[in-house]
């Protein structure tokens, strides 16, 4: 058996990264070691140029209103916290979906205890948000709707454009958690009607960990919870409201931003459509194979839309099965609740969760075969 480790946990973070990403980070740390936007010497200016270029690249990539509205954060969780805690306060109404990650649910539950009303739309058998229920909730009033673009458990993509329309008709704004889609599914903020976009840099966008983005739609006021140095309007005792500085206090993660920009350029050179198609094909092959193995249940849309496939093996505890896949077969998948207990409640796999295989650009059909062969052996041994 080929003992080389097969990494199928790209929904947690993509690995490996394209070589250009490693090179960009290395180059940045070695040659652009100055603090961007803080000083007037040449190295600081070059560093600031790198940040500005990355903002422009991201603005175009997501069809954002302006590069100044692209905020660099720590990760997608940070972006969601900045957005939700800066938009919602006592008396406001929030609506969310049934397939949310704890990075959405935990901030919402905390806000709920501070007087924000929080409603959760139901799901359908097809793993999508029940639009009738969602519409009904919006009719009762909505300030902010926050939904994941694709579930990190099932991979199912939600009807964002349709949801945005309903939210806008009722006077609310839509915050999109693009943790599982940024970089692997095309996102056009204008076309979809997304008001605020939160995304990690280290997943589909192929950057390193430690950098995320928040894109804020025009005319939206998000109160910052983090204040400090901006290198801009320093004479003022208060945090400036102007974007991006208003939401970006402190020295940014320059090597992370450099790596993220290189990741996006790589995606553009390959084409996001071909990345999407490739990951969906791998998922389709895996789902087909898994459905033919006795005692295996698959939790995935009938037609897979990205690289995420959840499954369980009857009579195997998922944590054990995950450990055996690593131990005996050299395959890294994620086992458990994937930080999304609500989703598992919705699909009936709470509290044990599922095994989740998630593909990235560098996976191939050989990896699918390795996993299928292992699951067949596991299933036969019990």
């Amino acid at each position, binding site marked *: 058996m080929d003992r080389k480790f097969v990494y199928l946990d790209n929904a947690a973070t993509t690995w490996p990264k394209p070589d250009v990403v490693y090179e960009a980070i290395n180059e940045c740390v070695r040659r652009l070691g100055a603090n961007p936007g803080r000083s007037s010497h040449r190295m600081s200016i070059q560093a600031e140029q790198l940040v500005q270029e990355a903002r422009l690249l991201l603005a175009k990539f997501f069809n954002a209103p302006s590069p100044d509205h692209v905020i660099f954060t720590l990760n997608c969780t940070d972006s969601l916290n900045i957005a939700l805690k800066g938009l919602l306060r006592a008396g406001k109404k929030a609506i969310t979906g049934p397939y949310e990650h704890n990075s959405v649910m935990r901030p919402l539950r905390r806000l709920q205890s501070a007087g924000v009303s929080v409603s959760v739309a139901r799901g359908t058998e097809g793993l999508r948000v029940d639009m009738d229920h969602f519409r009904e909730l919006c009719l009762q009033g909505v300030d902010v709707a926050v939904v994941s673009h694709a579930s990190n458990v099932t991979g199912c993509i939600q009807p964002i454009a349709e949801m945005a329309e309903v939210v806008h008709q009722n006077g609310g704004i839509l915050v999109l958690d693009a943790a599982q889609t940024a970089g692997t599914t095309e996102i056009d903020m204008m076309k979809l009607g997304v008001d605020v976009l939160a995304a990690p840099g280290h997943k589909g966008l192929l950057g390193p960990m430690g950098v995320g983005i928040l894109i804020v739609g025009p005319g939206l006021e998000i109160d910052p919870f983090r204040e400090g140095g901006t290198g801009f309007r320093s004479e003022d005792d208060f945090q400036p409201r102007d974007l991006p500085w208003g939401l970006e206090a402190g020295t940014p993660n320059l090597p992370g931003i450099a790596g993220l920009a290189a990741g996006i350029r790589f995606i553009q050179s390959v084409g996001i459509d071909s990345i999407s198609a490739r990951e969906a094909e791998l998922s389709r092959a895996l789902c087909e194979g898994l459905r033919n193995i006795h005692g295996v249940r698959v939790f995935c849309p009938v037609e897979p839309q990205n690289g995420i496939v959840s499954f369980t093996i009857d009579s195997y505890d998922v*944590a*054990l099965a995950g*450990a*055996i896949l690593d*131990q*005996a077969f050299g395959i890294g998948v*994620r086992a*458990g609740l994937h*930080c999304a207990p609500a989703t598992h409640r919705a699909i009936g796999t709470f509290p*044990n969760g599922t095994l989740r295989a998630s593909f990235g650009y560098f996976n191939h059909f050989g990896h699918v075969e390795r996993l299928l062969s292992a699951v067949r052996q596991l299933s036969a041994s019990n």
Partner: protein
Amino acid sequence: MAHEESRYSRQVLVSWIGEKGQEAIMNGTAVIIGLGALGSTIANILARSGVGTLRLVDRDFVDWTNLQRQGLYDEADARNSLPKAVAAKEHLVRINSEINYEVIVDDVNPGNVERVVAGASVVLDGLDNFYTRVLINEACVKLGIPWIHGACISTYGTLATILPGDTACYNCLFPDASSMTSPYTCDTVGVLGPIAFIIASWEASEALKILAGRKDLVSRKLMWLDLWKNEITSILTERDRECPVCAAREFPMLQQHDRVMTSSICGRNAVQVLPDVSRGFDFESTLHVLSRAFPVEFNQYLLRIHCGEHEIVLFRDGRAIVFGTSDPKVAKSLYTRYIGG
């Protein structure tokens, strides 16, 4: 204060202690790491002897199988699953309320071991694994604190007193200890109650010499004793002039991450225990030892044992998942007890 006179009078009468020695004992601090069979007896003796401060350190909780030999605990402690350090203090306060107690319910690891032993006049070993002894040795040698190594299993036990810079240190005696594990633990091959009481008493006696200011009287040998065979052996020990710990003062283990890492399993009442796999793991002998002690389930991928309300699933490379707890300390403790350490 008339009380105090009579409380320690028999100890003061011992010629090499005297009033001066007793005063030194009462100003001293003893740190007892591990409060199982050895540690609870050591604590009992040292509390009665009037040691000024006893620092009681253990990550574990009292369970039913402890009562046979861990002399400080009773059935109520086991029923309530009290942390050993907390239960020990509660009993000790009733034995001697005139001394200070410090309780630490925690795992001893490279990140905290120096704080755990800081300020001690002497440190005593009540442990059940090699790795923590290696950490204690490095911390004590680094800070110049005398410590007493004691261990027992089955019907035999061993003892060595370590005076940093003077006697051989634990690394001089057991240079491979940091990479050793053994499936032979009190929970897999058993332990006779009396051997634990004897080794603990011996350790406490060595500690009293140090506390009373008579380091000159401590053992400079590695002692070994088997109660079933009635054999006592001693080996004269020598410092290793190239010892990385007490000669070169490099303290390698204090700078590495904890050798046994844990990771919680998202959403499950289970903890994965990840020992350092680079040192290799003898699955076959572990299986052999465990299967003699417990009913084990075994297939090509894993070995499963039930221990009370917990279940341990062990994989071939030594990694394990402990079900029935989400507390990493509990998982590590069960791993050390049943799989070895």
